[in-house]
């Protein structure tokens, strides 16, 4: 159906972005497909190596899942940052990914968590890393007739933790001006053995900041490490000036949030 109708057909889950775009006449779909009707997209399943989160699982449902929250608190918090309680009951990670906003809150958290996207289409299913999924503002790697079925989060090893922080001018109801996600694993002695850091809203798509891993791995979270972390975060920024923030502000705050998120992730990893 999706393939036959072409680009004017739209798949939706929570509809919290799509209905706004329709209202503002940015899109005029000829066909709407309700993903929620596919049972597979509505479940959270803990498998041997992964947590499989259906693309139409809402933020509120993720927040109510204690096991998921304990495993990936940063990812769940990122999803819970999307909009109000009213939005939370509808908005999904699948939708947040497909909307492909550079400022999407869940995407940097998923990138830090090394999550993968499961895509179904006319030629079967495939998986891509989250950081490869959005290709430009509003654009994804989905081919004609494809849609997102679920998102896979790895089961984290012992002593792991993650965090996502964003900056907005108010306390709620804004789109991220900058977002930073950090996930890391420590050894028994508090030294980092694995780490991923990501940034949102500072480039055309949310990005994995690859040099961050080298700064963190093999180290503890000293002031010098944090300073280097802020530095690589700022160097990775290629933001724009717009109604939500300036280039200078975004770049500066990216470093601040990267450090703050790293500290939270570290504390969580120590406790786990």
């Amino acid at each position, binding site marked *: 159906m999706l393939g036959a109708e072409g680009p004017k057909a739209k798949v939706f889950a929570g509809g919290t972005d799509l209905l706004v775009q329709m209202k503002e006449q940015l899109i005029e779909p000829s066909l709407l497909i309700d993903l929620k009707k596919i049972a597979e997209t509505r479940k959270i399943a803990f498998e041997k190596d992964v947590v499989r989160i259906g693309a139409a699982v809402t933020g509120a449902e993720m927040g109510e899942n204690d096991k998921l929250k304990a495993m990936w608190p940063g990812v769940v918090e990122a999803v819970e940052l999307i909009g109000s309680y009213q939005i939370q009951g509808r908005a999904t990670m699948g939708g947040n990914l497909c909307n492909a906003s550079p400022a999407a809150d869940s995407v940097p958290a998923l990138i830090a968590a090394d999550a993968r996207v499961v895509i179904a289409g006319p030629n079967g299913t495939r998986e891509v890393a989250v950081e490869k999924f959005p290709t430009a503002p509003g654009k994804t790697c989905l081919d004609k007739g494809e849609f997102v079925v679920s998102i896979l989060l790895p089961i984290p090893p012992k002593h792991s933790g993650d965090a996502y922080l964003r900056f907005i001018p*108010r306390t*709620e109801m804004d789109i991220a001006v900058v977002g930073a996600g950090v996930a890391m694993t420590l050894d028994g002695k508090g030294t980092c053995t694995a780490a991923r850091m990501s940034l949102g809203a500072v480039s055309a798509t949310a990005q994995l900041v690859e040099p961050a891993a080298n700064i963190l791995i093999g180290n503890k979270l000293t002031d010098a490490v944090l300073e280097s972390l802020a530095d690589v975060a700022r160097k990775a920024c290629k933001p724009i000036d717009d*109604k939500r*923030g300036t280039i*200078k502000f975004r770049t500066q705050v990216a470093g601040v949030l990267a450090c703050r998120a790293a500290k939270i992730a570290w504390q969580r990893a120590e406790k786990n």
Partner: protein
Amino acid sequence: MNEISKAKSNYKWVGKRTPRPDGIDKVTGKARYGDDMIVPGMLHAKILRSPHAHARILSIDTSKAKALKGVKAVMTHADIPDHPLMKPPYPPIVNDMHDICRNVMAREKALYDGHAVAAVAATDEAIAIEALKLIEVEYEVLKPILDPMDAAQPGAPILHDDQFTFGIEPKPDKPSNLFRSIKGQRGDVEKGFAEADVIVERDYSSEPVHQGFIEPLACIATASENDSVDLWTTTQGHFVIRALCSKVLKMEIAKIRVTASEIGGGFGGKNTVYGEPVAIRLSQMSGRPVRMVMTRSEIFRATGPTVGTRSRVKIGAKKDGTITAAHAEIYYQAGAFKGSPVGRAVETFFSAYTIPNVYAIAHDVCVNRPRVAAYRAPGAPMACYAAESTLNELADKLGMDPIDLRLKNAVTDGCESLMGTKFGHIGLVDVLEQMKNHPHYKAPLGPNQGRGFALGYWMHGGGLSSVSVNLQDDGTVTVATGNPDIGGSRSSMRAMSAEELGVDIETIKPVVGDTSVLGYSHLTAGSRTTFATGWAVVNATREIIEKLRALAAKKWDVPVDDVAWEAGSAIPPAGKGDLKPMTLKELAGIATKMGGAIAGHSEINAGGAGAAFSAQLVDVEVDPETGFVSPKRYTVVQDVGRAISPDYVEGQIQGGAVQGIGWALNEEYFYDKDAKLQNTGFLDYRMPVASDVPMIDAVLVEVPNPNHPYGVRGVGEPPIVPAPAAVANAVEHAIGKYMGSLPLSPPKILEAIQTTKAAAE
């Protein structure tokens, strides 16, 4: 006429916290707001809006839209009569029909992104939207201009070829975006500054902010074949809407009946016409009722915010804090048409202080943005921001307590404002002293926190109000006013009427009458309703009491002068032992049998509303790494005259303060390089949400206004006046740098923090 009420110190209903009469309908969803109405057979209207901020309209072809199935009428400016330019003398706030008819529907030019260009009425909204796409408009795109100072310079793109700066002799030969300048002066400013020990001078800027009412503008017009029109609309003044529609469309006033819906917020934004004349004309053209509701995006693009400003203020003082001179110049960004509240700027700057040498001038400048509209204390908060910020810097420089500095120079009874208004009995000193003694003033601050103070002054309006009070057969009473109830005024009307009559408030049903049943009533604006309309309620109720005394006298066959009215009953003269007092209810029961129904009415032009002062204290915490500001504590001390409904007086103060927080911190418009608006919704027009603000402690100081039967002053506007200045002052103290620019958004604050830090290193 005021003796009875003034003598009373203990009121039964006035000053009490009673549930509002319209409350139940508003918590159960029954209250009908602008777009909650349907009329059988109605069409749906949509407006085509200019995508250009400044463009000459070369041609409009509506033929394809007219041909679309379901389209019943299409209109352009050609369907609205033109009006000549207003001639001087100009009133303090100019409402030129030449401008209003062009704002309703662009004629020669589109003057801002979103300016209405054509309109369609169709059988459903989807068809109307489709039809808009079929209207072909040929534009010659012109260069837009947004900054008011640039716009006032020679060589700037000109909005109106027929606007020549007023007040310059000889008349300029080139048109200008500067419409006029208003100034006020006293003493010798140069001499005053020469006498000063300390002088502070700074530039300021503030951005236009929207009223942000939650209910969209909505109306339904039903035109009859006999030229009469019924209009349902959400407005702050249905009599004003009637007057404007009658003028714009050149219709007879009595043929237009306007009914005000419940109103979902206005703050000055619903004082004028936008869609109403269009809906009326489309209804006349189609022969069907026409409903028009604006989307939020249309509201942001095309309805008036208040002015943005660029200003410079200079104040000089002696070492002991005595202010010797003050100078202020401000540019007001009027939007596409003249009419900024320039007089209010001059009135606001320094009127709370006894300064011997003052000069203030305000310029009204047109730019390619929506036409300026009123917003809560129009013109005052931005002037107050500049003047109070300068005073705060002066206090810091003098090492003087900011409240002591104000007390040292405070105006008292009998002083005169810069625009020549003489103060009656005012409560400024009481307000300042109560603030100084408030526990907040001495409370310790935490790390990264700063405290800000500012004083706001506002001269209230009175004006025309009409009221009709009808006593029913069963002793219940209807009080009809011509003022939409925007925030609980029914409660105050009921309390004053019940107080006069001496009956239970539940006896009285306050309603808002339509334009056909009452005399002219001005807007629910200018904080005038409880003052002016309340006064008319008192008058009309007293007329009923007179008639009831006369009725009792007739019944008892005694002279009317011997009949008293006490606690809801007519009291017979002493010495007539067989006569018993008659209650309101008993008298109501015999009225129609003994001469006719009893009603009272009052049509007044109320004066003497007087000045009020609001002092505000706020603590904020600033995140030094991101510039994020979090208001932590907020106290307002305000002279309210007499609080008829204290709950709603506090509510006005709390709401005004929070609007001021939004103004100070995050609310602004973002235009791209072509002057197209980028934030057309609540998502990026960042009004405070519940988690952004603290509780607002509202301290009511009651210095009764001697000109009103119950001592009422306005209360709605003063609380927004000093709020942006107070918040800005708190931020400045938290980061240790004077800013001079609103809003204090995080990028601006972070930049200031980093600059200060770099300079210190």
